[in-house]
């Protein structure tokens, strides 16, 4: 990307200089367009082969599962792909016994997103604060370590006792899961800010607040953003576990109900929905990350050779 941008620059200003490069006795530069066409054709072939292989893997996997569940193993325990598919179709066509499946997804998402936002914001604020204040960080370090070692999933049922069966207890579960994931990265990001950048900002005349806003936060951004991927996964899990522990709606309830009614296809179907939601969220976060981190060299340094 960057190279392209610069090449345009070059083409405009230095076209004459470039032609003088070739020594008279040398073979002329070959038609790079042709070389390039060759290269991209090879790339396309490679990609097609890859997709074929992936498809094959999926077919073999699902096929052997279906076959096994039909003839050898008991689908009561292991379900089978066709049954799972039917359950999914049923849910999306007719709805679940608690109402439309979209409603369940939305409720779970609402809990996850709300908790995610609160947890991430708290994580960033506290992380940056402690990252920039050595003394506070030193004092609180043992408490944070201990709090981080608490088995947070177990808290879900405590939160139900404290906050009831509604939104609040699920959001609380999500918040504690998200908070630590974000906190540690924000902390590291804020602490590892390049000393030179800080000094430079001070020399250029920045106030304490300006340093925080223009140096510390942007520096920590890539750390924070990278933590958000894991954090959103945690958020979904937190919401599901919270619903699992007690709820009247949501994907976690769907799964726990499937478990209660010996509906193994339903368990798998619920898990597939959650997985898809997580993948979509992941994709959105990657988009956000790419937007916010435009200033970084592109990560894909795929400098494989042409021939």
């Amino acid at each position, binding site marked *: 990307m960057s190279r392209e941008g610069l090449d345009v620059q070059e083409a405009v200003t230095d076209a004459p200089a470039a032609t003088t490069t070739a020594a008279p006795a040398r073979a002329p530069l070959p038609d790079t367009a042709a070389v390039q066409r060759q290269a991209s054709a090879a790339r396309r072939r490679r990609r097609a082969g890859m997709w074929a292989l992936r498809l094959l893997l999926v077919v073999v996997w699902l096929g052997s599962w279906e076959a096994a569940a039909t003839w050898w193993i008991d689908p009561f325990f292991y379900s089978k792909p066709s049954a799972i598919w039917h359950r999914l179709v049923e849910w999306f066509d007719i709805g679940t016994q608690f109402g439309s499946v979209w409603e369940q997804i939305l409720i779970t998402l609402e809990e996850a997103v709300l908790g995610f936002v609160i947890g991430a914001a708290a994580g960033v604020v506290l992380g940056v604060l402690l990252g920039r204040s050595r003394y506070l960080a030193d004092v609180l370090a043992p408490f944070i370590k201990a709090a981080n070692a608490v088995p947070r999933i177990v808290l879900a049922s405590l939160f139900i006792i404290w906050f009831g069966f509604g939104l609040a207890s699920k959001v609380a579960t999500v918040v504690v899961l998200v908070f630590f994931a974000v906190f540690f990265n924000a902390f590291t990001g804020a602490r590892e800010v390049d000393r*030179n950048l800080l000094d430079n900002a001070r020399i*250029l005349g920045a106030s304490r607040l300006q340093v925080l806003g*223009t140096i510390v936060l942007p520096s920590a951004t890539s750390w924070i953003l990278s933590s958000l991927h894991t954090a959103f996964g945690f958020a979904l899990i937190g919401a599901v576990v919270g619903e699992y522990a007690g709820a009247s709606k949501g994907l976690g309830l769907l799964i726990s109900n499937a478990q209660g009614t010996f509906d193994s296809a339903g368990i798998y179907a619920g898990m597939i929905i959650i997985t898809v939601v997580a993948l979509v969220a992941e994709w959105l976060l990657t988009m956000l990350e790419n937007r916010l981190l435009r200033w970084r060299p592109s990560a894909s340094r795929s400098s494989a050779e042409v021939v």
Partner: protein
Amino acid sequence: MTEDPVIRLRGATKRFRSSSGGVHTAVHDLTMTVGRGEFVAVVGPTGCGKSTTLSLVSGLEPPSEGEAVVNGRPVTGIPDGVGYMFQADAILPWRTVLDNVATGPRYRGASKREARERARDWVRRVGLAGFEDYYPHQLSGGMRKRVAMAQTLVNEPSILLMDEPFSALDVQTRALMQDELLRLWSGTGAAVVFVTHDLEEAICLADRVLVMTASPATVKASFTVPLARPRDVERIRLSTEFLDVYREIWESLREEVEKTRERGGKRVA
């Protein structure tokens, strides 16, 4: 040159706590002055305490003992009119060239439009017109140094501290940047303290070369460079005057370098 100096260090000492918990003296009882408009180069062996000296002048670090005086006032905090180009890259990777250069004016309260206007002028002056919207990672090392230079100069400092600004560049780019620096500096009347490892560079650029002792640093000797200005860096380093001064200063410096060398692995990279 010695009356009414812009920078004066008097008996300045700076101690750091080393990573092992011990105490390391980086600068010991250092006294030096720099006059108005003077270009002083500082050379000395690796790790002797050159950067530390600059940080005392800039107010980034307070001296452990002695005092630093800039423009007649003792240094507490960053003194007005100080510009500092760091040894390492210090431009903001998440800002474009233009916004990087506009950083200083923005910090100092200029409006966004005004800051950008002044920045655009300096981007042009350092020869980066057309690259305003590039991010640092899209630039070569030499271009990044120019951005840093514009970023520092846009604040129109009356004191310019430069810490081996060109040492990371290849020889060819470095020569170019040296010329560029002299061109931009001439006529600003700013006092310059230019730290370098490279004696050649020191002589090409400076009015006066200070030689530092091996660690802990103090001033060992001061040499005036008799080369006329304006100078063409690429030409004068093959002249005989140049070679004479070079030999003279090198004799003084070599002693300290060897002292440092003998201490062997002292420098923990």
